[in-house]
């Protein structure tokens, strides 16, 4: 699974990590995501998904193994560039949107990278336009609906022009309309996406390829459609399609 030409957006090899209290969360994770791919990382609660995500931009540093973003290894001296390349969208937009207005919040990332003036303004407007939220630019984040806040949260990392967008449970707490709107936005972004979720229909809708993380290792890697059709595989890793979704419907 090697990319041709440009280095893959993300390459994780033999990543292992134990929390300071000794709990081992990752036991040697290997995965590669090529440029432009949209990949879902599936797994039950407690599988180590969030721990893995925290390694992708160096918030946690690997106990063993390596993480490379577009060829650049995650190390102390590369952190700022890594954080520009990896756009992390957190699950609770109230954690992500901490500035008094939407404009300031979207500007926060690029401003930390030294972008100023007209270029900063262009990036902020561009990112908000891509998620359809330009008209709330001067509103305080806590006056937006939950769905709007999640979209603004996506804009805050798009403004950093990342190599790869990492979304932690993007569909959680969204009503069906907001969920569809977010899906439309994500489909139209021309950026590599890694989506961490246990919302299997959402993974199927948005991602060609899926990985299953279970007990700290990648247990399966393949086309989303065939992974979701394998009822035994899903059951073995505490994953389930919602009631009413039938496997044959996925196999066409």
């Amino acid at each position: 699974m090697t990319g041709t030409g440009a280095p893959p957006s993300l390459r994780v090899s033999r990543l292992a990590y134990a929390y300071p209290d000794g709990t081992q969360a990752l036991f040697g994770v290997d995965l590669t995501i090529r440029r432009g791919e949209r990949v879902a990382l599936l797994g039950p609660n407690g599988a180590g998904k969030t721990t893995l995500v925290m390694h992708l931009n160096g918030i946690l540093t690997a106990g063993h193994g390596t993480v490379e973003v577009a060829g650049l290894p995650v190390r102390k001296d590369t952190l700022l560039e890594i954080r520009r390349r990896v756009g992390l969208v957190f699950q609770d937009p109230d954690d992500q949107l901490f500035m008094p207005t939407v404009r300031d919040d979207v500007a926060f990332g690029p401003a930390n990278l030294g972008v100023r003036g007209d270029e900063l303004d262009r990036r902020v407007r561009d990112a908000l336009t891509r998620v359809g939220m330009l008209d709330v630019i001067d509103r305080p984040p806590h006056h937006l609906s939950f769905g709007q806040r999640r979209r603004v949260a996506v804009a805050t990392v798009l403004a950093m022009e990342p190599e790869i967008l990492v979304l932690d449970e993007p569909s959680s707490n969204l009503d069906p309309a907001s969920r569809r709107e977010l899906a439309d936005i994500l489909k139209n972004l021309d950026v590599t996406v890694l989506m961490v979720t246990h919302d299997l229909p959402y993974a199927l809708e948005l991602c060609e390829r899926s990985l299953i993380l279970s007990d700290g290792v990648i247990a399966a890697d393949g086309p989303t459609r065939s992974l979701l059709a394998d009822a035994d595989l899903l059951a073995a890793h505490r994953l389930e399609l919602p009631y009413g979704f039938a496997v044959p419907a996925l196999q066409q």
Partner: protein
Amino acid sequence: MSAGHHHRLYLPGDTPVHLLPPQCKLVAVAAFAVAVVATPRERLWAFAVHALLLTVVAAVARVPAGFILRRMVIEVPFVLFAVAIPIIGTGARTEVLGMSLSVPGMWAAWNILAKASLGVVASILLAATTEPRAMLLGAERLRLPPLLVQIASFMLRYMDVILDQMRRMRVARESRAFVARDLRQAPVLARSAGALFIRSYERGERVHLAMLSRGYTGEMPITRDLSASGRDWGMAAVLPCLAAATAVLSWSLT
């Protein structure tokens, strides 16, 4: 607290007072307060001039009198204290409406009341014409330690989130038939407060992670040009200068 789209103390507008850079207004209000405090309490006319100056500012800023009066309620504890002084004060006494009151006490009460009221009205005008976040940016420009400014701005941002969480916890308590009738229910409320503290602390950690993820290195990037021109400073200086002149006059005229 999140009833409107603006902070309760702020009155949106685009008057010359609203448009002044926040740091100029902060300095002006502080200097005005110093001038008022420096005015001797016996010069009643000087306090009338100070009040007149604030009235002019309020008129220019189009802040209605009712708005200011309602906000002045915050002063009530001081007023109660001031009222008590002439009654408990010592020294020469005089009869007012059949009550024996201390003369120095009355002067002391007047001093507190007049100076506090002028200070409070000046602050109300500042808050009514300056958005809370602009105030913080102004404070940062005035070299207030950035860490303090950041703490204050996070308080501003998360106040509603935490109040909302508090409300949800109250609803959850009451849905299970909890009624805070007397002191015996205090442990339940204390535990709720503890839980709220821990949740807020954990949120603080998550926010910090989100900030690190976007390249935060300990300093908030300054993205907005807030520099004040000489004209801005000149405009802002009008109020404190007139107040200072009044104070100086009140000392020299006997």
